[in-house]
């Protein structure tokens, strides 16, 4: 493949239609349709009189203020709260088991925003899109508001009292024990050591009880392979910060796997061209993942071929050109001998010699490399085999013990596929007396073939701890709603030696009880076992455990009380870790692997993947999450069937997906299950693969999430104790129907104007200006503004940006941006102030991808300012392009004149939030905009104000980096830097002058305040 580098702009496109100049016209998109609601008829005489009297009433109403407002002060003012000032508490994000460090911002006792905890050793200040959105779940009006009892025959849910619920629970648990049947606690991954200890005590209350852990996005194969290769069932700690070469075999570690914020942060720390060295990312995958879009080199293979590709790499290193001590191990040599690189390359359809080159590259970087494979990327039969092969590679290359560290093992994914499928079998056989389900939704997420719903009917007593009447809770006898993580105490140890706390930031909004509190209560009522007489609350238990376990290990000098307060304040504590070192690879692991058989030539293979936004579907009822477009497909509010361009062409489906608003609907048939879903072409997908996102198709998530897309878990396979989500044989058939698909990119075209610039690391090293289309100063009719004090600016590094979209949700949360829903997104009227534009370039079958955050550029010569007839958008003395909402009359001239399309118009009254609980999440520092006015990025003007006020109160000059916009704050890769361009020592001022810096559409001479840094790719074969 040849690349145009450094000379002349590269052609970028957002979709195949864009690439081939066949974008639909603006008229056909429906954006400029006359709304049918517009009243056209003139008022009748009667209505005229009515209107007249309304006017008179208006005139007469002047005597008293309407409505009369009441001020209800505190009865006893809490010491730490000053109305109007925010209070921040350190906590831990509870959205997924990654357990990222977080800080929650509260106003008058209401949590309104989550941010990453900058002091957290793993995740720094970063937080992902889902973490940012999790604060909305707290106020979800579809949460259960009280303990509930379910009629299992009719599925009717009714409110109950805790007394009633506990009585039913204890009866059910006692009955199970008396019948000699097992009590099973089925949970998702629990990263809380204190909760795990409490669960142990709970289980000991019963003669036969067991804790089964099940995680729909599973890392089971990885843990099992670790066990067979190194003797310990763990997930090793991964250190991307030490890796010069990262090879991912279908592992979406930047988007969805295990701990994306931590990984993205560490990975990007090695991707700074200015440092003189740059890590290389090689991705070998079947579908197009977020990680794949960031690859320097990307190879497409069918999921069935991932295993032989890994084995062929081992063959290159250990057999064809024996290197390292493991090459002398006859068992290993024997196992990998048959996987010759050239044969595998030919079968998998990857360029000849690419595996040998990759093996050589890995060998050069031995001890500084990291090879990863997605635990669910290969078909179930070879999922463990793929992981074993990867372990072999890491051991052979001396990466084990360096970039993979068993001593800092991760707790972030603990499920066992075998345990959960065996559990369902035991349920079906009637062996289970009581089933308690917490944190997972097996009725939704287990493959249909496992038959959870049917098996649950054979269980005497089923309890759910879900916060809503979800799919599994509907099959239960009782629902004991758990609290939101911001309402309760908890602790987390995501990686060995890293401890963090969660403290309640608000009292439970409804009559709900923490899961742990419920377990303790039931232990007391059951009256047997170690907790029969326990009087401690969950908080007492947690604190006591920290006194006994964490405090001594943390080696703190202060007494425990001070240590505890410090831990709450900082949110995170480190304890000493045991000495680490490489573990020796047990070659016996290779002997038990099943024989590999090639897939039928050209057969279609289904891959199910968790999307960056919806993940496993746990927060499908969160409108912020549904509205974030998938970073790769740019589709919101739906999952679709993704198909490669060449396959679509062969099947005559290319035209069917041209219009980004509507697509042909296909029937996807995996034999054991089938459903209809619209099709979309996805560049970069393997031609023999179709991919569908899981997490959609919820039936009992709530009013937002129900019926959005199809439940792709239904197509997953369950064979031999493994759940297969890749390499599922599948058929697709056209239905002749069409459906709408809300894609937020594809309707805008850059008209081939260069919007972003890129280069290769080799070129960059020769000339740091490489690829940068910047031309320096252009003549202007305008005289330059003078900025006497601050001049706010931003720098965005396109090399660091991975497209994760965390900034989009952070911005939404900070700035009260409404989610508008599918219908309105289809009209191109989404409200995001910052979006991530995704551009492809090169071969449509395997393109290179660039992500570009796009937000108001705060131009010095702002085209919007000159056309506003009412001075609603003006230039501030600090270089902000400010929007004064109460002046705006909604002409939309500014938006028409904006070359970046970053202004958003309120077509509807989004400020009128009907659900009262949802008003509580609004940031009181940001005006809620009404219908008919324009809005856009303000550079978080309220945060600028707060920063200036802080400095003013302290009487010190504003420190650089003190003001962080919401997008900058949450960015896991630190791609966004905000600051004062007038301060020559500020980071942003230096970046603005950096050789890689360019402004977008410079030729328009708008003089943006945002400087982008060219994207640098570290391609193979181009030096470095």
């Amino acid at each position, binding site marked *: 493949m040849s690349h145009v580098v450094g000379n002349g702009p590269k052609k970028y496109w957002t979709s195949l239609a864009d690439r081939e100049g066949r974008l639909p016209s603006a008229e056909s998109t429906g954006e400029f349709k006359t709304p049918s609601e517009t009243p056209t008829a*003139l*008022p009748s005489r009667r209505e*005229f009189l009515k*209107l*007249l009297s*309304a*006017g*008179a*009433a*208006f*005139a007469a*109403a*002047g*005597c*008293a*203020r309407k409505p*009369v*407002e*009441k*001020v*209800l*002060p*505190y*009865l*006893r*003012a809490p010491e730490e709260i*000053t*109305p*109007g*000032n925010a209070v921040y508490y350190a906590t831990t994000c509870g959205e997924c088991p990654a357990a990222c460090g977080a800080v929650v911002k509260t106003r008058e006792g209401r949590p309104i925003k989550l941010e990453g905890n900058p002091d957290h050793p793993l995740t720094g200040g970063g937080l992902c899109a889902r973490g940012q959105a999790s604060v909305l779940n707290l106020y979800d009006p579809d949460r259960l508001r009280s303990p509930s009892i379910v009629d299992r025959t009719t599925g009717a849910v009714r409110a109950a009292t805790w007394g009633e619920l506990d009585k039913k629970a204890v009866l059910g648990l006692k009955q199970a024990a008396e019948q000699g049947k097992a009590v099973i606690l089925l949970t998702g991954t629990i990263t809380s050591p204190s909760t795990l200890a409490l669960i142990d005590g709970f289980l000991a209350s019963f003669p036969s009880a067991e804790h089964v852990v099940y995680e729909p996005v599973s890392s089971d194969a990885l843990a099992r392979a670790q066990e067979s290769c190194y003797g310990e069932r763990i997930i090793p700690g991964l250190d991307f910060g030490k890796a010069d070469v990262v090879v991912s075999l279908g592992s979406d570690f930047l988007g969805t796997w295990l701990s994306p914020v931590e990984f993205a942060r560490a990975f990007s720390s090695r991707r700074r061209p200015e440092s003189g060295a740059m890590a290389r990312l090689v991705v070998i995958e079947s579908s197009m993942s977020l990680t794949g879009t960031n690859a320097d080199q990307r190879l497409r293979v069918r999921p069935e071929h991932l295993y032989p590709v890994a084995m062929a790499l081992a063959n290159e290193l250990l057999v064809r050109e024996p290197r390292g001590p493991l090459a002398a191990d006859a068992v290993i040599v024997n196992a990998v001998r048959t996987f010759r690189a050239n044969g595998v390359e030919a079968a998998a359809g990857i360029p000849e010699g690419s595996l040998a080159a990759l093996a050589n590259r890995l060998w050069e970087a031995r001890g500084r490399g990291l090879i990863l494979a997605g635990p669910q990327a290969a078909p179930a039969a070879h999922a463990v085999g793929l992981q074993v092969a990867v372990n072999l590679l890491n051991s052979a290359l001396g990466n084990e013990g360096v970039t993979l560290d068993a001593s800092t093992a991760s707790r972030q994914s603990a499920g066992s596929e075998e345990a959960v499928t065996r559990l369902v079998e035991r349920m079906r056989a009637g062996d289970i007396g009581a089933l308690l389900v917490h944190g997972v939704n097996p009725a939704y997420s287990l493959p249909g073939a496992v038959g959870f719903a049917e098996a649950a009917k054979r269980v005497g007593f089923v309890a759910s701890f879900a916060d809503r009447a979800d799919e599994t809770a509907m099959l239960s006898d009782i629902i004991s709603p758990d609290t939101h993580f911001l309402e309760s105490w908890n602790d987390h140890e995501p990686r060995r030696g890293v401890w963090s706390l969660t403290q309640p930031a608000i009292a439970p909004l409804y009559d709900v009880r923490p899961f742990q509190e419920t377990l303790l209560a039931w232990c007391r009522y059951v009256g047997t076992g170690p907790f029969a007489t326990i009087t401690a609350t969950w908080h007492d238990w947690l604190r006591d455990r920290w006194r006994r376990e964490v405090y001594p290990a943390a080696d703190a000098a202060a007494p425990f009380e001070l240590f505890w307060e410090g831990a709450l304040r900082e949110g995170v504590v480190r304890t000493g870790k045991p000495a680490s070192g490489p573990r020796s690879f047990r070659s016996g692991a290779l002997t038990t692997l099943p024989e590999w058989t090639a897939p039928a030539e050209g057969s279609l293979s289904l891959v199910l993947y968790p999307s960056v936004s919806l993940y496993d579907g746990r927060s499908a009822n969160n409108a912020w999450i549904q509205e974030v477009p998938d970073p790769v497909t740019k589709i919101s509010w739906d999952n679709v069937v993704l198909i490669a361009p060449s396959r679509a062409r062969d099947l005559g489906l290319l035209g069917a997906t041209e219009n980004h608003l509507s697509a042909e609907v296909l029937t996807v048939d995996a034999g054991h299950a089938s459903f209809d879903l619209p099709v979309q072409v996805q560049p970069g997908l393997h031609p023999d693969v179709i991919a569908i996102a899981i997490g959609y198709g919820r039936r009992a998530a709530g009013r937002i999430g129900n019926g959005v897309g199809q439940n792709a878990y239904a197509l997953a396979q369950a064979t031999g104790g493994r759940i297969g989500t890749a390499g599922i044989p599948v058929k697709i058939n056209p239905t002749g129907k069409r459906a709408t698909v809300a894609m937020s990119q594809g309707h805008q075209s850059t008209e081939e104007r260069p919007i972003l610039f890129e280069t290769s690391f080799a070129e960059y090293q020769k000339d740091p200006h490489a690829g940068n289309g910047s031309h320096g100063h252009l003549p202007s009719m305008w005289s330059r503004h003078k900025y006497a004090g601050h001049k706010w600016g931003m720098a965005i590094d396109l090399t660091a940006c991975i497209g994760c979209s965390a900034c989009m949700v952070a911005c939404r949360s900070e700035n009260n941006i409404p989610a508008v829903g599918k219908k309105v997104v289809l009209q191109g009227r989404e409200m995001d102030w910052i979006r991530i534009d995704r551009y492809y370039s090169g071969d449509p079958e395997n393109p290179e991808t660039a992500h570009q955050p796009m937000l108001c550029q705060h131009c010095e010569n702002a085209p919007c300012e000159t056309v506003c007839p009412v001075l609603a958008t*003006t230039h*501030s*003395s600090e270089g*902000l392009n*400010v929007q*004064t*909402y*109460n*002046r705006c009359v909604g002409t939309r001239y500014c938006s028409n004149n904006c070359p970046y399309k970053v202004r958003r118009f309120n077509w509807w009254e989004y400020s009128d939030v009907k659900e009262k609980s949802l008003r509580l999440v609004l940031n009181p*520092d*940001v*005006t*809620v905009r009404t219908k008919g006015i324009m809005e856009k990025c*303000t550079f978080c*003007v*309220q945060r600028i*104000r707060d920063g200036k*006020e802080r400095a*003013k109160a302290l009487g010190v000059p504003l420190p650089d980096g003190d003001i962080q916009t919401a997008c900058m704050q949450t960015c896991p890769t630190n791609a966004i830097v905000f600051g004062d361009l007038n301060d020559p020592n500020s980071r942003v001022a230096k970046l603005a002058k950096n050789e890689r810096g360019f402004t977008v559409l410079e030729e328009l001479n708008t003089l943006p305040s945002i400087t982008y840094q060219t994207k640098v790719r570290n391609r193979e074969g181009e030096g470095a």
Partner: protein
Amino acid sequence: MGPLTGNRILPILVVAVLGAGAWTFFDSFSNVGYAPEQPIPFSHTIHAGTNKIPCLYCHGPAERSRHATVPASNVCMNCHTVVATDKPNIQTLTNMVNAQQSVPWVRVHRLPDHVYFPHKWHVAKGIACQQCHGPVETMDVVKQVAPLKMGWCISCHRQNQATQECSACHM
């Protein structure tokens, strides 16, 4: 545009009448003179006037927050557990506090939601509370004396060379 037939005059008339109504209506938003009756007839004359209690004793957050706030009931009870406990109004207050009820004061001064007005910087500049709130220490019933409209804000900012940036108040 065609001739002004009856059908065309009609909407113009509606707009004119509505406009006149709205003008009177919105002008009344200034609320100067608004002095609602309060659930407990709290007298600023007694507290701030006769007894010379500093404004910030009760409205402390005015110094450190955007809001001056109506004081929490426990601030009242700082004194009224011993002072004037025989007065019926104080007994009403005490009963409410004992019953864990907040006093439903009626709001007098109100700025629209799209305005950011920080009390603390105005207090820090040494602007007397009375400059905007009038002689509160002489008011038995608190009354709004200033229009609290943008023109009124700006005129003071202009006189004092304070910021006139849109984004100083609108964000």
